[in-house]
């Protein structure tokens, strides 16, 4: 069955209910195109997501999916991967999901380095709750929750991920599907925690940052000969974030061993394949006599 060339195998009958022009469409297409770059069949892939417009994405990609709780796609993805490490596990969510509610899980997932791909649809607003400012919302950004402009300084997801120890850190743009496809392919191939911060257009609640606005500002790191193995340079680039010039591409990729490599329990195959009948606990009882 593998690689039978059916280019529609990740399509679903159900259609997304995002706003016309939403950046999520670009991310969804890029993800499907990325999956088609591999031999994967739909049953070999599982997506987890949080809550928000973007987190509905598993419903519209033909793979196993668990659309769970706001801020929690990463813990669920971690448990899934450890339960069956043969699966390709992709976690998705928005910036509110990942950097407001789910920030702790994000930081910990970076340092834990389980082999997951985490794609954040980052548009600076809570869209499904009608446009409040999120943790990546720019200082001064006016919204229904910050009518006088946001007071807080925003999270810098790329710099944060590098600091927290992520072994793969990239930034994409929902309006550049080919680049994003390639980033997702690289993230899935990467052994360890791979994070992609995707600059996503929200046409309804953050219309000032339109496709044109982004296109005028994004550039590709590879065009400037950035070496992703150079962590210090990656950090400098991440910290020099300013809205006049937005770097995209792979900031950092390291060779840290994934978490799973340190678990001899997994050498006999995925935990889910282990037999559980008639487990002998007589040695445990003998210890207590």
């Amino acid at each position: 069955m593998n690689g039978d060339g059916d280019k529609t195998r990740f399509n679903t009958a159900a259609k997304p209910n995002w706003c016309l022009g939403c950046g999520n469409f670009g991310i969804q297409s890029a993800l499907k195109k990325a999956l088609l770059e591999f031999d994967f069949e739909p049953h070999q892939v599982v997506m987890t997501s949080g809550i928000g417009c973007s987190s509905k994405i598993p419903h519209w990609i033909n793979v196993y999916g668990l659309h769970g709780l706001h801020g929690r796609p990463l813990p669920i993805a971690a448990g899934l991967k450890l339960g069956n490490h043969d699966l390709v596990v992709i976690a998705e969510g928005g910036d509110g999901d990942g950097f407001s509610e789910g920030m702790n899980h994000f930081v910990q997932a970076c340092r834990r380095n389980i082999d997951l791909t985490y794609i954040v649809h980052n548009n600076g607003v809570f869209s499904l709750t009608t446009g409040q400012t999120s943790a990546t919302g720019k200082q001064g950004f006016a919204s229904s929750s910050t009518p006088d402009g946001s007071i807080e300084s925003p999270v810098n997801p790329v710099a944060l991920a590098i600091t927290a120890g992520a072994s793969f850190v990239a930034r994409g743009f929902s309006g550049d599907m080919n680049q994003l496809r390639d980033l997702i392919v690289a993230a899935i191939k990467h052994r360890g925690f791979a994070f992609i911060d995707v600059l996503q257009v929200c046409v309804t609640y953050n219309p000032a940052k339109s496709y044109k606005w982004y296109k005028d500002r994004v550039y590709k790191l590879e065009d400037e000969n950035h070496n992703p193995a150079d962590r210090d340079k990656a950090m400098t680039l991440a910290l020099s974030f300013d809205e006049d010039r937005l770097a995209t591409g792979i900031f950092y990729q390291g060779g840290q061993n994934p978490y799973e490599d340190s678990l001899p329990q997994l050498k006999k195959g995925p935990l889910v394949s282990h037999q559980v009948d008639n487990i002998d606990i007589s040695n445990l009882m003998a210890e207590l006599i």
Partner: protein
Amino acid sequence: MKTNELSFMVGGFAGQGVNTVGNAFARLCSRVGLHIFVNLEYPSNIKGEHNYAQVMVSEEPVGSHTRLVDLLLALDAKSIILHKDEITPGGALIYDAEGLEASPIDIGLKVGDIGRNDITVVDIPMAQIAKDVGGTQKMINSVGLGALQGILQFDFELLAGMFRQTLSKLEDKVVEMNIEGARRAYSIARERFSEQLGIILEKRDAPDRMLLTGNHAVAMGALKAGVKFYSSYPMSPSSAVLTHVSKHARNYDMITVLPEDEISAAGMAVGASFAGVRAMAGTSGGGFCLMTEHLGLAGIAEIPLVFLEGQRPGPATGLPTRTEQGDLLFVLYAHQGSFPRIVVAPGDPAEAFYLTFEAFNLADRYQTPVIILTDKHVAESSWTCEPFDTRGMKIDRGDVLGEAELSRIGDYKRFRITDSGISPRTRPGIPGGVFKATGNEHNEFGLISEDADNRARQMEKRLRKTASLDVSEIGVKLHGDPNADLTLIGWGSTKPVILDTMSHLKKDHTVSCNFLQVIYMEPFPTDRVTEVMENAKHTILIENNATGQLGTLIRQKTGLAVADKILKYNGRQFFRDELADLIQQRL
């Protein structure tokens, strides 16, 4: 002269090895065929505060402790000040008048006049002995054990044998030093004081018994059930389950994770279970507050999941290392909305073992969360117990579809409406089974649906699932004479003390009691509880909480009120004689 009947207490400050002495003595007595119960009382502190352990020894099964002790081994001055009046007349105090070590927070504390002419005061120069044989202050534990064995005229070679076994990782000369220190204290205690105390311990021929806590039993039940994933953020009184399971994780091909918080612990367990392995998340009430989000997700997304909730007194941090049964109503109603859940409450290690094993079968069969509700008393106290009979323990993963069945079905509906409410499940990785699960209301395929009729049908389907779980036999147990004059009603960790109190009252011919123990809190054994309540001549609710939560539940489920109640909520378990007195006051 009494033989093999003893209430012993060892007191000291945290870090001094009080539990080591208590447990070593208990283990030794257990190995010579005696029954044991150990209650630990300690504060949330690592060094300095007062700790004590009480060890009950008997030739008959014993499950509870008494207010008074026959023998107090005081390792510091505070233990004497706090506990001297708890020594039974004719009992004994063992201490070291010259060498009592002061706790870092009680420096300068003086014993003063003990003021007890009715007990034997056994002054053994434990610190000096430790020094004489070349040891340090830390060796006082071993010397104290020697003194204890001496006054009880116990065979010294049994103690020496235990030292050789349990200290086998130490250098031989250190082991022999401990033995020599113990021997010197043993000789003084035996020669000078044992006749006055008049309690002796003797070996009895008995089958091998385990000495274990509820936490050991939960860990073993989970490993026996094939748990592959255990996630837990440390919190008393459940932390030791993580320790026990982690110790054996590699041998049992499973993984333990200590994640960033209890939200993640529960979320990881959801993910592992969704992947198809048996998973459990463990915590106490405070951590369960954080886990409730995923509890409900598992409910609506129909993901089998086992939770361990070891209660301690709340709210908030409460009394972190003490005991209470205060979370019953919380776990029954935690999370918004309605979904089926199963809640079991073991009352001793054996029940903890069998119910934990069963919890995994129930979770898989009904595809819903199962909560094992223990508390500090059952989790951390130790009891002697026959090795578990594991014959006939069968794994039931419920209705699971593989590739062949899925290909026959074709258009697989993960949340198909069925008569039983149970929809056959599959797992990621299986061809032909691709589906979505979601915390949103969903249709039979698992896709989000806000259709009104669908909502009602899916809700009814989920709530139907546990209707087929008949708990009338397994969910409740009536201990004792069904026609007794008095029916005591309780659950969980009060089981051993209620049973002991019953036999105590029976021996005294005071009153004939039986004990209605509720084991399944949800689904609730309503019919059986109603039947027993209606036939009872008089009922008393006994709970370790301030509001009588089981009483509330019984009233809710049966419409019947328990006539009287005895509640204790100071963070400590009932003493056997205290409970007997409280019952008699109400007759």
